[in-house]
């Protein structure tokens, strides 16, 4: 039933962390651990995906995410083709499936897909040839599984385990695919208390059914946390019917040293980037000793290598 797994339970596509078994998540993290030193060696690549073609299909532009996938693919010795479809064929009215079929005809082995619509990666995965794997690099508000995984990797590196943690996800959960992937991963990996903190306008309906505790107040929500994950607030949402202003948001939900002091003394602070300093996070915190925001970026490459390596093998 799960379109992400093969009949024998191996990873076929990576579309969402929702419903993936804990064993698979752990295997990805473990595999990523082995890729960690590749970037520090004399030759910064392994020959695993030599001869494989990986297409970055970005229907929504994102230099940052695309670059990390590109580096990861190149460290695996794959050939990478970047397609910024937002500015090419889509504007000419070419249907997604035509684009996908065309690339498949060029012997693609893997598609890395980013799209503004929730479910777009599922849609493409449903329509590709059996030898092609699809990695969701962010679809609408739905999922960003590799970001969720790299966040888990970061937490495991700093905290060692998941079973004794309290983790807070703070901010615009409503529009955040990152938050959804984090929440699924955290609950699957056995974090006993996952909290979301934000104003009611930025929390989705029935979010507690995803297994989280809801807080509307930073002081209460951060108390006793081991991990604080801040979410990005998009510019267009800083003023309007969801929020009156960025200033007022920062006052109540921005992470300052004072608010962070309510979490455990050894709590780590994470952010998927890019940050809005002074909106969701104070610079003093972002650059402070508890911040692991830069390591997150480094780990992102190893995690994406692990995902691609697990997807690409064993199907030819």
């Amino acid at each position, binding site marked *: 039933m799960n379109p992400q797994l093969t009949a024998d339970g191996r990873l076929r596509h990576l579309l969402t962390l929702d419903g993936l078994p804990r064993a698979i998540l752990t295997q990805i993290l473990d*595999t990523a651990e082995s890729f960690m030193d590749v970037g520090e060696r*004399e030759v910064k690549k392994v020959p695993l995906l030599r001869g494989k073609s990986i297409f970055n299909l970005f229907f929504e532009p994102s230099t940052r995410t695309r670059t990390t996938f590109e580096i990861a693919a190149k460290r695996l010795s794959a050939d990478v083709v970047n397609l910024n479809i937002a500015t090419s064929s889509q504007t000419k009215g070419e249907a997604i499936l035509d684009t996908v079929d065309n690339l498949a005809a060029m012997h693609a082995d893997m598609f890395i897909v980013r799209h503004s619509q929730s479910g777009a990666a599922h849609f493409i995965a449903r329509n590709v040839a059996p030898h092609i794997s699809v990695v969701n690099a962010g679809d609408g508000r739905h999922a960003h599984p590799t970001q969720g995984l790299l966040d888990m990797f970061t937490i495991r590196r700093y905290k060692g385990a998941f079973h004794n943690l309290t983790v807070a996800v703070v901010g615009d959960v409503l529009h955040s695919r990152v938050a959804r992937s984090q929440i699924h991963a955290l609950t699957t990996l056995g974090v006993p208390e996952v909290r979301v903190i934000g104003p009611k306008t930025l929390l989705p309906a029935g979010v507690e059914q995803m297994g989280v505790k809801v807080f509307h107040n930073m002081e209460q929500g951060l108390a006793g946390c081991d991990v604080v994950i801040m979410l990005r607030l998009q510019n267009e949402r800083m003023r309007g019917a969801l929020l009156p202003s960025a200033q007022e948001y920062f006052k109540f939900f921005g992470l300052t040293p004072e608010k962070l002091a309510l979490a455990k003394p050894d709590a780590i602070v994470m952010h998927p980037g890019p940050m809005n300093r002074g909106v969701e996070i104070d610079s003093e915190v972002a650059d402070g000793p508890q911040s692991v925001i830069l390591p997150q970026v480094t780990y992102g490459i190893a995690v994406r290598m692990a995902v691609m390596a697990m997807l690409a093998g064993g199907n*030819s």
Partner: protein
Amino acid sequence: MTASLPDAATLIDALAAAIAPGFDPDTRIVGIHTGGVWVAERLHALLRSPHPIGQLDISFYRDDFSRIGLHPQVKPSNLPYDLENRTLMLVDDVLHTGRTIRAAMNELFDYGRPASIKLAVLVDRGGRELPIRPDFAGLVLDVPAHQNINLSRLDDGHLSLSIA
């Protein structure tokens, strides 16, 4: 069906004895996961090497990756020194087709350019598919292609060879 084989510890002792005469203390010992690391650990002790051993997981260099995929438990490779111009003693448990050794050498070169590599194996079972031969072998044995030789580690830390 498991036939009896010589005791692994005895073989390792013999292997160490064969290596010892020309062993340069500056040589770095590198074991291949998983059995090769066990053998390397013993050799390391017996040869009184002053340097930590290296560990190599060749999963990322296997030539059958496309066919069988990634091993579910990849261990990180760990080479706690610069390889440039070093003499290496590569250690594995069983030498068969030679493909593992090829992968291991490819991986080593991605860490740097060693001055030389020697190969020590616990058992050379024959059946080579590549032009690779060991410099030291604890036991040379002709094993039919359908049989497997396995090195396992018991709960008490003892190594045991079996054939199936």
